[in-house]
């Protein structure tokens, strides 16, 4: 594979970035640009496909191939690119409304098929572009323009949803922490198949400080549970730990349990039950919340399977012969002067 040396600037476009000043989307854009520049992979091999929403403006700002498509459908469109062009690196940029509301169906199906896509879900727990209605990740009781008495919509936990949808790679990161984001992007990039990354993204206009519990200087110390493969899951300066109890991931005081009982994180566990249990530690960023890679397992990707079938068919049957195909149902010949009734 050719490599080139790039800087972040090589992945910037001449388009004026139109997000609100202070929006978390800027930070994510910078992380992604930095990450792909560092890969050194030719720029023309990247495709960014988005739906509709603030987040979905993203491709306009990436100097790669890109498509700003229609609301919710980016995973489907990206499927067409990824399945026919295994030579490309295909990314989906989506929001919580885009991915989980109007596009929920496509999201779960690309995950179960394991299409080779890297899906970045910018979760700001609000509809940004349409100016502040509650979204499928907004918390119960949230007062927004469309829920003046508080939302009564029970929210999705995107990580739980992805795990339930048979995803092979599921992670969570947050806009502010660029090095964490880039580490996750790298692991996703290296994963063969669908990689789902929920990115907590602050919308400072319609839902400011929604993630304060995991981003605030003080708060994050107590609430960030950093999942690290092969390491016991502890947080809050080591004072708290996760153990499995009655099939549930449970927070305990580290000092009160046998160190051997502390759950050692294994993202490659074939069964998703424990990853799911970890995702249930919080239903949103409201207290101790796991960040990092929940699950990273191998399963053949849809595109590699499809292309293998094509290759195998060619090998077994030979390159298609159209002349033969149109004769495959049996033929008969009418001679030049066939007399009527011959």
């Amino acid at each position, binding site marked *: 594979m050719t490599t080139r040396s790039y800087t972040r600037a090589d992945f910037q476009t001449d388009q004026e970035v139109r997000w609100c000043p202070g929006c978390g989307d800027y930070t994510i854009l910078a992380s992604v640009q930095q990450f792909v520049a560092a890969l050194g992979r030719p720029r023309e091999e990247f495709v960014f496909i988005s739906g509709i929403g603030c987040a979905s403006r993203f491709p306009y700002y990436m100097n790669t191939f890109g498509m700003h498509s229609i609301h919710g459908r980016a995973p489907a469109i990206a499927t*067409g690119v990824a399945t026919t062009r295994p030579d490309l690196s295909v990314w989906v940029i989506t929001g919580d409304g885009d991915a989980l509301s109007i596009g929920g169906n496509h999201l779960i199906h690309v995950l179960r098929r394991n299409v080779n896509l890297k899906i970045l879900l910018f979760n700001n727990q609000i509809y940004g572009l349409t100016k502040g209605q509650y979204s499928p990740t907004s918390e119960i009781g949230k007062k927004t323009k469309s829920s003046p008495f508080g939302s009564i919509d029970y929210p999705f936990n995107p990580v739980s949803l992805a795990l339930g949808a048979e995803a092979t790679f599921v992670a969570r990161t947050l806009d502010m922490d660029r090095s964490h984001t880039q580490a996750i992007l790298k692991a996703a990039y290296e994963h063969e198949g669908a990689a789902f990354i929920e990115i907590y993204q602050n919308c400072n206009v319609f839902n400011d400080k929604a993630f304060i519990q995991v981003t605030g200087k003080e708060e994050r110390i107590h609430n960030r549970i950093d999942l690290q493969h092969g390491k016991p899951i502890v947080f809050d300066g080591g004072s708290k730990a996760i153990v499995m109890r009655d099939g549930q991931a449970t927070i305990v005081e580290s000092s009160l349990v046998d160190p051997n009982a502390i759950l050692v994180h294994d993202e490659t566990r074939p069964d998703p039950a424990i990853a799911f249990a970890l995702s249930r530690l919080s239903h949103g960023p409201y207290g101790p919340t796991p960040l990092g890679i929940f699950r990273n397992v191998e399963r053949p990707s849809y595109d590699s399977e499809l292309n293998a079938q*094509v290759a195998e068919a*060619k090998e077994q049957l030979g*390159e298609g012969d159209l002349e033969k195909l149109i004769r495959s149902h049996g033929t008969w010949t*009418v001679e030049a002067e066939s007399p009527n009734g011959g």
Partner: protein
Amino acid sequence: MANETATADPSSTTTETLEKLVVRFAGDSGDGMQLAGNRFTDASALFGNDLATLPNFPAEIRAPAGTLPGVSSFQVQIADFDILTAGDQPDCLVAMNPAALMTNLEDLRQGGTLIVNSDAFDERNLAKAGYESDPLDDDSLKGYRVIKVPMDDLTKRAVKDTGVKGRNVLRSKNFFALGLMAWLFHRPTEPTIDWIEKKFGKQEEVAAANIAAFRAGYNFGVTTEATKNTFEVKPAALKPGTYTNVNGNTALAWGLIAASQKSGLPLFYGTYPITPASDILHELSHHKNFGVRTFQAEDEIAAIGAAIGAAFAGNLAVTGSSGPGIALKSEAISLAFMLELPLIVINVQRGGPSTGLPTKPEQSDLLFSLYGRHGESPLPVLAIATPSEAFLMAIEAARIAVKYMTPVILLSDNSVANASEPWLLPDLDSIPEIDVEYAKHPNGPDGTFLPYMRNVDTFARPWAIPGTAGLEHRVGGLEKDALSGDVSYDASNHQLMTDTRAWKVANIANDIPQLEIDGEEDAEILVLGWGSTFGSIRAAARRSRLEGHKVATLHLRYLNPLPNNLGDLLRSYDKILIPELNTGQLLKVIRAEFLIDVTGLNKVAAEPFKVSEITEKILEMVQ
């Protein structure tokens, strides 16, 4: 038993030669009537008859056995000349049970032959079909030549040594009926036996039972002289060449593969199963060795979405569905229109609205195809007239899509899709290549790439696919600057882009064949049609000419843009009739486009036009 004791000399039957013959197989949907009909058709095709078929099945896979909604039928017309339709009235009806008789008898020609499975006429079945007394015993069938055959019993006896058991025994009944029909109409038997061996080869017992039943049916005819008269239809004097028998869905699938080869573009078909379009998927999914990638999506939106992605990535991208699914695709079609990417959208129409009549023919999506999108988004719309024509129409749709960088809607309908006809195989080499060139180099100043800088002739924008260095660019649904493709909210730019996109599509009129009148130039009346009414319209014109009238016909394959000479042609006739299987959709278009008056003949009665219906209307108008 009759076939054991009969000693009649087969030579004592007489053979009458017919020019054409319409037969209909009707039975319970579990009776295998489609299969029997198809076998009869293929044997006739291989024998050299011209033919046209009309399958008709219930929407339910298995409506309760023996009931009226459960009846499935297959009609075929065979002839020694070039025929155009599956015929209005069967000359021979096979009725496997009382329900089939009840629902089909009124169509049988007076004096026609009726073959019934008398074993099925028990009290329960009679009651289910709504008969108060057994029609085989009273004289309600006296206008027909009735051949009563205890098919259940004879089939059981025929297959008893083949090893099939239980419910499988009576499964071979359709082959018994087919064998009897083969005898009655002098059909060759080898093609059917060969087919059974090929099809059921792995299930030896089933193959043996089907062959035994088929032979028993045939021999029943021979030995009992089931009727004194048998019939034959000589081969048709078709144009010399090699033929195959093909239905519209298959021809369409093969045409897409041909388009892929002619363009050098890999074929991608994204779809979600729906009657009557699913068979295109089934067919294409077999042909991966042609580089075909089929994608059965989670819904129609994903299906077209994936196709749009595949088009962006450089494939010959196709999505197919029927009315309800096309409705779901509407937003994405407008996206493809806005992105100016090549895409074929196939709509195999069926009776609507909503789930409507999913297995019946209708042409009621014309206006939807022309106008059923938000914003100003005119698209090329093509319509297939006959099953075999689907092959070339698929190639034509691909040619237009890639040459003009636009989605193209290709209309078929249930009667094109499932009906079959002999197809004179084309010389594949003589089909022109489809020229495709992906953009390779920057086209703007200072090495920039302008994704909307257009070809001066076609107004197509360049197709710059991912992986091409220096051509990185972004497209999207937001309005774009006329050159750079960057997002533009500029008012005059939107006007320019709207006009340009419309002009691009309208200009395709200069790149499609001019229409030619069929029939007399100085005719008293012009009959204008589109889509699957082709055969009935042409046949009705023939009949009207036999009545001494001058009749011209025109058939539209291009519904948008309309051929350039259409207006002049229409204006040269005083009387214009437009028969359509809808409530008058082309009629509205013609009136709106040309400000001329036209008369409609419209029906949405779950079946194609009868030739007689159009003939009567023509005669009424010229009188």
